[in-house]
């Protein structure tokens, strides 16, 4: 392996693993999160890896206003994550319940259930905003 590749591989290994959880969102934010992985926005170049299991995740990226049906699962996934762990609320619903505030089927923002480290507003949050928010969070993690 060349020196460059060694460095890149090291950066990848040191990079945080992210899981994504939708707490009853309309899917707009979830699609923008996925879109930020595609070549146009390319979140991957910052060394971020999206994984399926909470056990090894450093960051949980959440969308949605926490419907009653998802409340328990959200809490459980958070508890499964090892310290240090961070939560990013993507979108206005995840930040505050958004337009669904007061609806009987929702709890409200993610922070009504678990602590949130970063809020990325928007309805939906644009891929640029998502990348910006995640990168800002990463730099605080690194320091």
């Amino acid at each position: 392996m060349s020196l460059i590749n060694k460095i890149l591989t090291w950066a990848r290994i040191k990079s945080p693993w992210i899981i994504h959880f939708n707490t009853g969102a309309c899917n707009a934010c979830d699609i923008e999160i996925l879109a930020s992985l595609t070549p146009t926005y390319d979140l991957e170049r910052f060394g971020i890896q999206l994984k399926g299991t909470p056990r090894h995740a450093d960051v949980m990226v959440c969308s949605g206003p926490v419907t009653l049906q998802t409340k328990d699962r959200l809490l459980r996934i958070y508890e499964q994550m090892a310290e240090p762990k961070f939560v990013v609320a993507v979108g206005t619903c995840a930040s505050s319940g958004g337009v669904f505030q007061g609806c009987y089927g929702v709890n409200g923002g993610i922070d009504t259930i678990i602590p949130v480290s970063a809020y990325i507003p928007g309805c939906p949050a644009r891929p640029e905003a998502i990348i910006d928010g995640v990168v800002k969070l990463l730099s605080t993690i690194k320091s």
Partner: protein
Amino acid sequence: MSRVVVPIGPQHPALKEPASFTLYLEGERVAATNVALGYNHRGIEKACEERPYIQDIYLIERVCGICSHSHSTAFIQAVEEIAALEVPRRGAYIRSIIGELERIHSHLLWLGVAGHELGFDTLFMYSWRDREVVMDLLAMITGNRVNYGINTIGGVRRDISKEQSEQILKAVDILEERTKFYIKLATEETTLIGRLAGVGSLSREMAVKFGATGPTARAAGVKRDVRKDDPYAAYSEVSFNVITDDHADVLGRTIVRVMELMESVKIIRQLIKQLPDGPISVRAPRKIPAGEAISRYEAPRGEDLHYVRANGSEKPERVKVRAPTLANLTAITHMIDGGYLADVPIVIAAIDPCFSCTDRMISLREGDRGTETLMDWEGLRNYSLEWYKKNRGIDMNKIHALR
């Protein structure tokens, strides 16, 4: 080189969740399916009764972030009927242009998701790249990539300038080229066809019996499309084909969607060329007189139906939303039963459900022993890819068409 795992089902299997799909297995086949939903239930209909109509538009748009324009237009059309408001032609045209752009973005999104479910991630990357052409257009016209907010009661809120019209025409030229390619893929690429043919069968008779709608029904030869049968907005002034197919399976659903991309391109061109001059909206009263109306809209996934009852106040008495996926979900058990477990991910994906439907736990019950395994979506997908490699020698990554 590490690979990105796209999070369609990120939950850990050991979490004891109420399963959304309970599959009763007999060997490698599914004997029976139980569907449980409600993940996304927020209480929107009740909230609509507690807010004025103008705020309800904003709320209804967010029923679904993929077809938000479908929902807001359907809702507003019902209100306009009750209030006897006639939307100016230019406003109706703009609604239709946005509607067709939404259809294109939704079908391309679906193509990518289906690709991912099949282990065909190159297709996901390509189709979502093409989808960005549409997202840019929508952002240019409406100010947002999603949840466009273009509708108001009585018409639309923003006009399309001559320059924007020209941009739209240029962009659909690009989309047309890409669509030709996707049509070729769906109708000539033998590996893909081999993978999809005969999977998730739903006959014409069954499609009608279960009340299926949209591409799921049209793929079984059911020629129903609200734009043709019950025209709204500007659809009675453009010519287009209702795409049906006779495969009555996942392949058929794929063919219908890629062909519909082409029809949408044709429709948008006509709408732009024929765009009438004049106002884009009429003034609407705050209080909507007592009355009721039902509005139907052909969303990308099928018929979207909104019922509104007004009581003379500025808040509706009742708003009922029936999104297309719900109409197709009763048919899903029929499509899965008798088939292979390995086909479950693509069969579910082929009705084009909301993402959240697939972000679920799946419970597998082994015949009489009743032993239960919980699998998350990603796990089932991996099982599916392995099964097809092992038993059919199908590996989607071997498709060279996209290289």
